[in-house]
C-alpha cells in the first residue's frame, strides 16, 4: 500500500502495440520486479506510485495500463479522456510497433481533447539489444536517432528503457510527471471538476497550516 500523503494525483495512460512491454514497464516502476512471462492485459489495469518532483511536491501517479491487443481497441479508447499524460510505448526490436506510434498519438490526442496531454515516447526492451555475439538477443529495429528525431518533431520527450534491468524506467515516468507539474505551475493545467487528469491529494499535516497562521500574525504586528 502506498504512503497516503500526496499533494497531487496525475493520471497517466500507457498506449502502444501489444507485447511491447507496457505492463512490464509498470510492474518494474511500481514493484521493482520483472516477470519473464506475463498474461496479456485485459482492457485496462492499474498501477500507482508516489514520486516527488523537483521541489519536493509529492505526486501520486495513477497509471492506466491499456491492452495493446487489437480486439480491445474499442474499449481502451474509452479510457483516454481523463489522462493528463500519455506514454507512447514501442519495442526497440519491433519496427512496426514504432511505426504505429503516430497512430497511437493521434488517437490519444483525439480522445483526450480538449485537454492537451504531456506525451513521452518510450522505447522498451533495450536489454535485448545485446552485443553482436549475443545470438539469442533480438536485433534493434528502431534506432535511437530516428526515435529521437520523431520525438523532437512532435515535441515529445524520448527515452529508451529496460524493464529487465530497470534502465531509465524511473526517468520515463519522472519526466512526464515533472512536465505535468511544470504546466500546473505555469497555469496551463488546472484541477477541474469533471476531469480526473489532475486531482489534489491529501493535505499536509495540520502543523503546516499552524505555522503559516503564526507567521501571518507575526507579520501583522510588524506592519
Amino acid at each position: 500500500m502506498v504512503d497516503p500523503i500526496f499533494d497531487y494525483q496525475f493520471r497517466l495512460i500507457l498506449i502502444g502495440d501489444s507485447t511491447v512491454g507496457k505492463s512490464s514497464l509498470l510492474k518494474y516502476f511500481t514493484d521493482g520486479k520483472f516477470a519473464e512471462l506475463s498474461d496479456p492485459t485485459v482492457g485496462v489495469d492499474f498501477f500507482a506510485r508516489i514520486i516527488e518532483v523537483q521541489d519536493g511536491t509529492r505526486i501520486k501517479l495513477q497509471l492506466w495500463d491499456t491492452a495493446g491487443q487489437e480486439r480491445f481497441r474499442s474499449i481502451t479508447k474509452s479510457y483516454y479522456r481523463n489522462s493528463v499524460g500519455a506514454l507512447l510505448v514501442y519495442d526497440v526490436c519491433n519496427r512496426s510497433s514504432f511505426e504505429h506510434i503516430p497512430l497511437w498519438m493521434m488517437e490519444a490526442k483525439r480522445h483526450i481533447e480538449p485537454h492537451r496531454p504531456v506525451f513521452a515516447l518510450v522505447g522498451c526492451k533495450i536489454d535485448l539489444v545485446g552485443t553482436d555475439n549475443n545470438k539469442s538477443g533480438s536485433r534493434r529495429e528502431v534506432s535511437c536517432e530516428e526515435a529521437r528525431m520523431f520525438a523532437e518533431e512532435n515535441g515529445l520527450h524520448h527515452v529508451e528503457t529496460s524493464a529487465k534491468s530497470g534502465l531509465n524506467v524511473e526517468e520515463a515516468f519522472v519526466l512526464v510527471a515533472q512536465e505535468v507539474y511544470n504546466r500546473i505551475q505555469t497555469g496551463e493545467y488546472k484541477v477541474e471538476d469533471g476531469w480526473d487528469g489532475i486531482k489534489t491529494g491529501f493535505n499536509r499535516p495540520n502543523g503546516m497550516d499552524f505555522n503559516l497562521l503564526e507567521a501571518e500574525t507575526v507579520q501583522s504586528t510588524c506592519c
Partner: protein
Amino acid sequence: MPSSDSENFESADEGQDHIKKNVRRKRISSSNYSTDTSEAEPVCDQVLSNSSRDTNIEKEKQSDGWDDFDIEITTENEKHPNAKVLSIKDASSVAKKDIDSIGTGWDDVGDWGQVEIVDKIKKDEVPKSLPKPEDQSNCDISEVTEKLAAASTKSGWGWGWGVDSLISSASAGITTITSQVSQGISNVLETSIGAPEPEELARKNIKEETNKEVLSDKVSELERNDKKTEQSSSAESTFPFGNLLSGVTKFVESTGTKVIAGGLDTLETIGKKTMEVLQDGDPGLAKKRAMLGLDSGDKPVLSQILREAKAKAEEEDMIREEKKEAKEVHYENLFDDFEGLVHLEALEMLSKQVNMRIEERMRSIEPEKKQDLKETLQQVAELCEIPEDEEDDDETPDDTSKPEAFHEKLQTATQDLGLKLQFQPLVKQYTDVLEWLSGDEQVGEKAVYKRAVSSLAQATALSVEIYHKTAEMLLVKPRRSTADEADALTQMTVVLTKHVSDLATAFTVKLNSIAADNKQQINEYATNIFLESGNSSTYIQNAFQLALPILQIGAV
C-alpha cells in the same frame, strides 16, 4: 660557432625589431673602421693585421671583438669602473709599444679582469704563453656571449623600463600589487609580457647609470647616443604597455577597495537599520528585553525554547500520525488504495460509452421496432434484479474450507458466463483474513477493527475489479448469450455481497472474543464494521448495475 654566437647575440639583443638590428649593425661596422673613435679599436686592427694567425680566427675576432668589448662594459663595469678605465689605457699603450704581445693584447681587450696577469705575461714569457691566452680568450668569448645572451634578453626590455624611473617603479608596483591581489593576473603579466623582476630592474638601472658615468670616451659617448635613441624608441614601444598595466592595476586596486568599502558600508547600513527597527518606539530595547526575559534573570531561555519546540514537534507528529491512522481506517481511502475506485471509474466509463451506443441505436431504429428494443432492454434489466434473500444454504460442507467453498460458489455462479475470470486474488485474500483471525497472537480491538475495514475495502475493490474485467471481456466476446450472462452476473453478485457480510461477521466475532474492559468501544467498532460491509455491498451492486448496459448491448 663564433658566427652563430654573434647571431645569437644580435637576435637576443633585439629580437623584436629587425630594423633596429640593421641600424645597430651599421653602427658597429662604422665604429670598427673609424680609428679615432676608440683606442681599443686600433689595437685590435693592428693586432689583426700584424698577426700571421688563422684568417678565420681573425674574422671571428673582427666581428666579435667589438661586441665582446661592449659586453664587458655592461656586465663588469659596475664592479671595477676605475680599474677598467685604467686597463683600457694600459692595454692600448702596451699594444702600441709591443707588437709581440699580440695574444695578450687581445686578451686584455677580451678579459678585463685579468689585466694584471696579462701584464705579467706580456713582460715575461710572451712566446710561451701565446697558446694559453688564446685558449683562454676562446673560452672567455663563449662565456661572455652566454652572459650576453642572458643579459641582453633582459636588457632589451630593461632599457625600455629603465628610461623612466616612473615606469620602472610603476612596474615594480604592478608586480607586487598584482601578485598580492591576484596570483592569476600576475602570472599572466609575467608570462605573457616577460616583465623582469623588480630587483633585477633596479640592478639594471644602476648598471646603466654607472656605465654612463664611467664611460667618458667617445666610444661610450657614441654608445650612449645610440642607446638613447634606442631607449627613446623602445620607451615609445613599451609605454602603452605601462599605461595598460597601470590601468589594470588601478582598476584592480579600485575595484577591490570599492568591494571592501561597499561591503563594509552595507554591513554598517544593515546594522544601523536593524537597530533602528529594534528600537522603534522602544528606546534602549527595554520592552523587548523584558519580553525576551533577558533582564529578569530567567536564564534557561534557550533550553526552554528548545523544549517547547520539541513538544510542538511531537504534537505535530502526533497530529500527522493521527491523520495517517485516520486515513488507514478510512474505508474510501483504502478502497481507493486497493484500486477499487479506479476500477469502478473505468467500469463507469465503459458503461457510459455503451449506454451512448444503445441510445444511438434507439434513435436510429424504426419507430415500430423501438418498442421491441425497449422491451428487450427491460427484460435484461429484470434478469439482473437481485433475488430477495432466497435459499439460505449457508452451511458449508465440513470437508472444504471456507475459501474453497467461496471459490466454488463463484465458479458455479459464473460458469454460464463463458469467460475465464480470475477469482484467485479474492480467494487468497479471504484465506489470509481467516488465517489472521484464527491466529494465536493477542491482538487489540483496534487492530481487529483496522484489519476489518481494510479487508472489507480490499475485498470490495477486488470484487469491483471482477465486474470491470467481466464487462471488458463481454464487450470483446464474439458470441453473446445475454440471458446466461445476466443470470451468471446476478448470482455472482449474490455470492460477493454474501462474502463481504461473512467477512464482517468474522471480524465482529473476533472483536467480541476480546476480553476488553471497554465494551463500549468494541460495540462501536462492531457497528462500524457492519456499516462498512453494507458500504461494500453497495459498491458491489453499483458495479453490477454499471455492467447492465454491457449485458443489454449484447441483446440488441
